[in-house]
């Protein structure tokens, strides 16, 4: 596959074997163009943004703002949306929970999440509800790992003020019906946040069609740098929200008596932002669009189909999560072998997968497992890597039986 050459890390050997990286839901590898965008900025354009008259600073400011609009176009946001750069998906959720949640939620109100959420889309709402005397309600899932939409309909009511849901479950790969959820929530006047950490780099996002009020994602899961994420939100919501972190860059004027704040998105970006991160992420989405998100999605769907079939054929292996709509994530358990030991033995073969509770303990609890082994695909993975995985899993079986 030609595009594997774009990723320097894939040329590397792990103990004499090529790296088979199947932990893309945790973080993705970086193409050379992303690494170069970061290095070039530091080597020839480095300056702070929003602050200086000099040419480096002017250029950095301009490029930072155009990275902002580029991310908006990548996510299919129309002019009704604004883009805030965050550290991560986690920070985006915290920002909304703080700046919208504290103003919106009253005692007795409800926030609706699902049994499929990542901790980062649970705990901020939990703490918010505690602080506001509101109630956190949970849409349950079925044995396949799909949301029970009848229960969603029942739980959504006039007290529901916020609905927060993953686009794709990081633990099971389930693709949730987020358009339907946003449409129904909107009818009840509830704000919607879609956690796109696991979708943004794997399918074309059309935020305007999806209809979410907020969408968050993480650069490092999109072939981009660490320390940068995106919160895309409806401008009218941003206008109404209180600031989050405070300090320079988010103020209009400061006196000890009274401080006024800048309009969004700046209102939500206090202090010097991760400038190199924004540029690297911009390079990453250019790279993705160069391949085409449809092609990326198609490729990963093929890997998923082949992987599902191959893994299901291994005796004693059970795939957890069999939703009809699934992204390129395959979680499983194996008789007699703990997920950690599976991951460890695969690592010795140069195969990197994830194991553990996957930051989704409530999902683990539902399936009654303490941990899962998880394989997650990226655009550079291949059918022969899946064959190597299957061979290694056969060996794991023998070790622990």
């Amino acid at each position: 596959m030609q595009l594997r050459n774009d990723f320097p890390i894939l040329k590397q050997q792990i103990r004499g074997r090529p790296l088979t990286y199947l932990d893309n839901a945790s973080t993705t590898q970086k193409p050379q163009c992303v690494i170069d965008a970061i290095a070039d900025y530091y080597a020839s354009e480095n300056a702070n943004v929003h602050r200086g008259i000099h040419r480096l600073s002017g250029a950095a400011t301009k490029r930072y703002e155009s990275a902002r609009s580029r991310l908006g176009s990548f996510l299919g946001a129309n002019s009704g949306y604004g883009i805030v750069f965050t550290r991560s998906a986690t920070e985006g959720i915290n920002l909304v929970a703080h700046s919208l949640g504290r103003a919106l939620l009253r005692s007795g109100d409800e926030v609706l999440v699902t049994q499929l959420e990542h901790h980062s889309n649970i705990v901020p709402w939990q703490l918010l509800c505690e602080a506001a005397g509101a109630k956190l309600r949970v849409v349950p899932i079925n044995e396949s790992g799909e949301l029970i939409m009848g229960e969603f309909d029942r739980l959504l009511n006039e007290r529901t003020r916020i609905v927060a849901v993953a686009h794709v479950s990081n633990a099971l790969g389930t693709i949730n019906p987020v358009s339907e959820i946003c449409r129904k929530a909107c009818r009840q006047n509830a704000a919607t946040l879609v956690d796109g950490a696991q979708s943004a780099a794997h399918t074309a996002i059309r935020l305007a069609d999806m209809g979410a009020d907020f969408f968050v994602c993480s650069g490092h899961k999109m072939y981009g740098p660490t320390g940068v994420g995106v919160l895309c939100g409806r401008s009218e919501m941003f206008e109404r929200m209180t600031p989050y972190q405070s300090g320079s860059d988010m103020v209009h004027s400061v006196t000890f008596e009274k401080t006024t704040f800048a309009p969004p998105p700046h209102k939500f970006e206090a202090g010097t932002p991760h400038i190199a991160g924004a540029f690297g992420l911009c390079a990453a989405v250019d790279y993705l669009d160069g391949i085409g998100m449809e092609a990326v999605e198609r490729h990963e769907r093929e890997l998923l189909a082949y992987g599902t079939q191959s893994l299901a054929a291994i005796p004693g292996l059970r795939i957890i999560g069999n939703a009809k709509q699934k992204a390129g994530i395959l979680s499983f358990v194996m008789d007699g072998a703990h997920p950690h030991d599976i991951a460890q033995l695969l690592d010795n073969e140069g195969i990197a997968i994830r194991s553990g509770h996957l930051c989704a303990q409530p999902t683990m609890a539902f399936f009654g497992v303490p941990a899962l082994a998880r394989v997650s695909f990226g655009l550079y993975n291949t059918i022969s890597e899946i064959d190597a995985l299957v061979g290694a899993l056969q060996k794991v079986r023998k070790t622990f039986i």
Partner: protein
Amino acid sequence: MADSRNLYEQVILDHNKNPRNYGKPAAADTIIDGLNPLCGDSFKIYVAFQNDVIECLHFEGDGCALSKASASLMTVLLEGKTREAALELEEALAAMLKSSPDTPVDESILGPLAAFSGVREYPTRIKCVMVAWQALAAAFSNRR
């Protein structure tokens, strides 16, 4: 899988498959929770004392081969030991795991725990070996 032999020594594979003193005993003086949130490992450890001496130890729960084998070996090794001796062995195990992979291992102190010396190459797994021990040590230190 030549490499993995260092990590999964026979004694570990054996205690993982056939854990000793596994399950809830009829009675226990102390019940201790050992949790490794990073991994989802979770054990309950049941301790029965006779005077100041650990009369017997049981455990149950779920965890990886390393955590389970380590807990199983712990229940075997600490029977008849004082709290102090237990804490000392916990410290010796922790110290060994933190030592560099080429440091010789003192089998006279660690006994079968020396099998875990391969874990020194895998620092993320140290916690697995220690989960039961740390829970026990925390409970014992509080009572000192």
